């Protein structure tokens, strides 16, 4: 680190948001830059804020602000600060891992007086880029997010003087110049105080230069001034600040009086119209409307009076604690700081595991990911992320989205990024390859940003669509590839072959060769990959880690009664209706089963894929129609449900007696695990990774793929023995708990990441290595 001579005072103003504050203080333990103190300025609090602060003992300077005034609170923090630079962050935000490190690099430029970075709102239901390269005019007009700096050069409103501004939750100032310009104007109780300060600094000839990175993640919390994500709030404080700002800075910039008046009336009018809309939508009572209107007018007049006729004495706050502070900072972080587990910024949860090494910072790639629609890889990645988070690690996921945003979802920062088709024009004719390459490049760019902001150490990519290829080629970070079914294997199974698919297969092969380490889900996958890609995977290059799922609670288990003499047996099939999943074999087996067990009933859940697997071309109909036509006598025993929700699926697993999935190929077969989760015996095929999941004769039965008679015989034999159904089901559940939970999976992945990171760092430090 080259910036260790700059010290920071991180100032947090807080009022009745104890939980958010605790989360922030926890996250500050992880800062990569250690030379900082933390000053918490507590307003007239009524919650358990002080109790939380006591836990930090002498590591934090706690000072008090007598009023609920943000500007005054910030000034008090400034007076208590001893760092070269004061950095402000809100109590309902958390900084990225390298926040202070980046700010320190910027302040290495001795001319820079103030800067700030981007702010992302990461609440799952309200995620957005809240601030990035924002600008404001002397008439309090503002644009918060700009794609580039050049956009700030255009005049976007009535004001003639426009400046780049920072957002209060992510801004830093050199301490001396900030004191010199008088700190924050305490007339602003809330809103616009930071912009006012920037105007004063710029007009005093100081250098203010906000940046696009140095990210802060914001989880807006309710306060006395507003109930978050609702219309409830003391909104008159906004118009009060805006009117005062427009008059004060408009006058200084030489704006004509009519522009200032217009802008002030506009601030009031906009709120007025909003209130009227709320009244019409019955979200605001009439009495509340009149109260708000009166407050707007009174505060507007007050703001105008102060803006026109008073000259404010700035930085007039006094430290009321009278504590003799030392002249240097008292570093916040201690020996244990770097061993603190990662924290969930939404609800403040963190792992209770005591870590012996610092938590890892991992980046997972997945084309789809919750909370948006997701596929098998998205589901696996989500479980892995959750498991890693529970082990204390910080997880970032890069996934596709229609616009750029960051969401914290189930243990991971999910970076949804769109990709532009701006590169690899040469392959425009090969649409899939063209998209995959551009996407891989967009991921690489995001990885660079995550290195800069969040200090990620390793990238984990699926083989499918070679998402991590460009990153792997760049050599920026080690790329671990987890192996499931590859595109080339799918092409071979579906007998698809064309130049694009061949090349995409070659790209997957290239990713296999460039990967720092490989994580196949079964030994069968290793063999299949070696065969499909004509590549030799030596044992030191991979480690098999099976998939894991979330075990359901024991109360959800309904295993079969061994003395049961049932008049109805339910056999469940889950999966897409397609050739590879062996649906045709099941169709042929059903009549044979029903001849011997007429009370059996088959439930088939999954979307029809007859169009894509060529079945419709061959027969002219989809699978359910085909069954209805060719097996009409058995139609009453079979129910096709189509695609079902997760909740419905859980019900189906719970209520079935036997699970059957005669896939002709599965690299792993998560569906068997899901059935085992509910203590159900399974019938599958001896193919791919299935024998590594299903213990034949112990947790279910396996037959040769494509043998409907053997399949029927296995089903019948199990249905005829309720005792066996129960025993196999319970054995399956036990096997799952021992080997296939998501935490076990995550633990093994983390061990691999640790080793890969250590190897990569060793190579990077060794100049003899290429």
């Amino acid at each position: 680190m080259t910036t260790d001579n700059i010290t920071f005072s991180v100032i947090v103003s807080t009022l009745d948001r104890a939980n958010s504050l605790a989360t922030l203080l926890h996250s500050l333990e992880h800062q990569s830059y250690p030379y900082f103190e933390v000053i918490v300025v507590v307003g007239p609090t009524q919650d358990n804020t002080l109790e939380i602060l006591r836990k930090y003992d002498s590591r934090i300077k706690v000072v008090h602000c007598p009023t609920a005034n943000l500007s005054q609170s910030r000034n008090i923090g400034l007076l208590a600060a001893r760092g070269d630079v004061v950095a402000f962050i809100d109590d309902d935000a958390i900084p990225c891992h390298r926040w202070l490190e980046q700010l320190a690099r910027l302040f290495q430029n001795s001319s820079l007086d103030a800067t700030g970075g981007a702010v992302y709102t990461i609440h799952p239901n309200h995620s957005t880029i809240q601030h990035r390269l924002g600008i404001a005019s002397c008439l309090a007009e503002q644009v918060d997010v700009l794609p580039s700096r050049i956009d700030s050069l255009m005049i976007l409103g009535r004001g003639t003087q426009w400046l780049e501004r920072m957002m209060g939750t992510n801004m830093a100032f050199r301490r001396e110049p900030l004191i010199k310009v008088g700190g924050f104007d305490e007339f602003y109780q809330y809103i616009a105080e930071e912009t006012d300060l920037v105007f004063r600094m710029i007009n005093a000839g100081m250098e203010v230069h906000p940046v696009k990175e140095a990210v802060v993640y914001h989880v807006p919390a309710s306060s006395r001034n507003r109930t978050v994500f609702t219309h409830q709030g003391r909104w008159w404080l906004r118009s009060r600040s805006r009117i005062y700002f427009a008059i004060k800075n408009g006058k200084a910039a030489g704006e004509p009086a009519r522009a200032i008046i217009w802008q002030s009336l506009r601030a009031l009018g906009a709120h007025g119209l909003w209130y009227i809309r709320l009244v019409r939508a019955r979200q605001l009572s009439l009495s509340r409307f009149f109260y708000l209107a009166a407050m707007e007018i009174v505060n507007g007049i007050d703001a105008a009076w102060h803006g026109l006729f008073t000259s404010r004495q700035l930085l007039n706050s006094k430290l009321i604690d009278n504590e003799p502070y030392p002249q240097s900072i008292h570093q916040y972080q201690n020996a244990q700081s770097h061993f603190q587990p990662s924290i969930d910024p939404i609800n403040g949860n963190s792992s209770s595991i005591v870590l012996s090494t610092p938590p890892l910072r991992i980046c997972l790639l997945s084309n789809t990911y919750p909370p948006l629609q997701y596929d098998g890889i998205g589901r696996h990645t989500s479980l892995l992320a959750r498991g890693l988070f529970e082990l204390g690690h910080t997880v970032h996921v890069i996934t596709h989205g229609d616009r750029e945003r960051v969401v914290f979802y189930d243990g991971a920062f999910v970076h949804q990024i769109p990709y532009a088709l701006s590169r690899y024009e040469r392959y425009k004719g090969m649409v899939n390859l063209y998209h995959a390459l551009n996407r891989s490049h967009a991921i690489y760019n995001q990885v660079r940003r995550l290195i800069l902001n969040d200090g990620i150490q390793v990238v984990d990519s699926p083989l499918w669509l070679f998402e991590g290829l460009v990153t792997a080629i760049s050599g920026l970070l080690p790329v671990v590839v987890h192996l499931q079914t590859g595109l080339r294997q799918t092409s071979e199974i579906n007998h698809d072959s064309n130049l694009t698919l061949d090349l995409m297969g070659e790209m997957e092969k290239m990713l296999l060769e460039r990967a720092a380490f490989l994580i196949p889900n079964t030994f069968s996958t290793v063999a299949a990959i070696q065969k499909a890609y004509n590549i030799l995977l030596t044992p030191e290059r991979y480690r098999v880690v099976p998939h894991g799922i979330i075990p359901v609670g024991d109360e959800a288990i309904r295993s079969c009664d061994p003395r049961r003499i049932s008049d109805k047996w339910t056999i469940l099939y889950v999966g897409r209706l397609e050739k590879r999943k062996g649906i045709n074999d099941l169709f042929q087996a059903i009549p044979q089963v029903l001849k011997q067990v007429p009370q059996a009933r088959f439930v088939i859940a999954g979307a029809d894929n007859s169009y894509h697997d060529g079945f419709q071309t061959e027969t002219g109909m989809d699978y359910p129609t085909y069954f209805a036509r060719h097996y009409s006598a058995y139609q009453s025993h079979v129910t096709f449900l189509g695609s079902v929700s997760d909740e419905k699926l859980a019900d189906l697993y719970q209520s079935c007696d036997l699970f059957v999935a005669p896939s002709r190929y599965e690299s792993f077969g998560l569906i068997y695990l899901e059935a085992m989760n509910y203590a159900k015996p399974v019938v599958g095929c001896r193919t791919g990774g299935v024998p590594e999941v299903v213990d034949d004769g112990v947790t279910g039965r396996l037959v040769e793929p494509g043998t409907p008679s053997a399949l029927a015989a296995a089903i019948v034999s199990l249905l005829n023995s309720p005792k066996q159904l129960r025993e196999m089901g319970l054995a399956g559940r036990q096997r799952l708990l021992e080997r296939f939970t998501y935490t076990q999976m995550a633990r093994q992945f983390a061990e691999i990441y640790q080793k890969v990171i250590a190897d990569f760092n060793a190579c990077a430090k060794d100049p003899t290595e290429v």
Partner: protein
Amino acid sequence: MPKVTPQDILADIEFELMQGVIASDELGRGVVALRQYQNKIRNEIFKTAQLSSTQRDILNRQFRLNDMLITLIQEMVLVIQATQQDIRRIRGVAESPILSTPKPCTAAGSEQYDIGDSLLKEIDSAIKPDALWVDIPPYYNSLPLIGWFITRLRMFLHRLAAFYVHRLADKQSPINRTFADALLTLVQLCREQQAQIATLETTVALLQAQQPSSTENAHNAHRH
């Protein structure tokens, strides 16, 4: 679609990575240095010089203007990226096997690689100075009362824009002329080379025609 190999794609990926490095590192560093210099000067002036408030205001505005210009330069990275995009396209065309593989010469006669007289005429007409001039389209607004005003205002703005466009066109014309001259010279050179190739091919064909009889003569002599 021409035959593409995985090595082509790898080369393209490495090329794209390299492009990114140039934009972010080299240019970025220069602009940062410029900004630092400006900050240094600003500091020196504001800290040392005794300035009246008017002078301070003027200087401040000038520095802000400079800031904006530096910002503009920073954003020139975008332009560079656009240029890089062009380079990608050109590179794509140049490396396309169809275009980069030379056609084999056949003994039957040389194919004429000529860009054609019609294209030359088009280039010639395109580089005339007035080709870059912009016509002002007629425009009438039929709104009552203010229509005439909008029409006049719009025509005025058009003329104003056209005035500057024409000045730019005057400056651009000689540049275009230079390019066209170079192009014509190359075409001329190409034609000469083609003529030489044709002559050489004729000579080769004549020599090949003579070769069997001379071989036959040598064979007869050997018999004797």
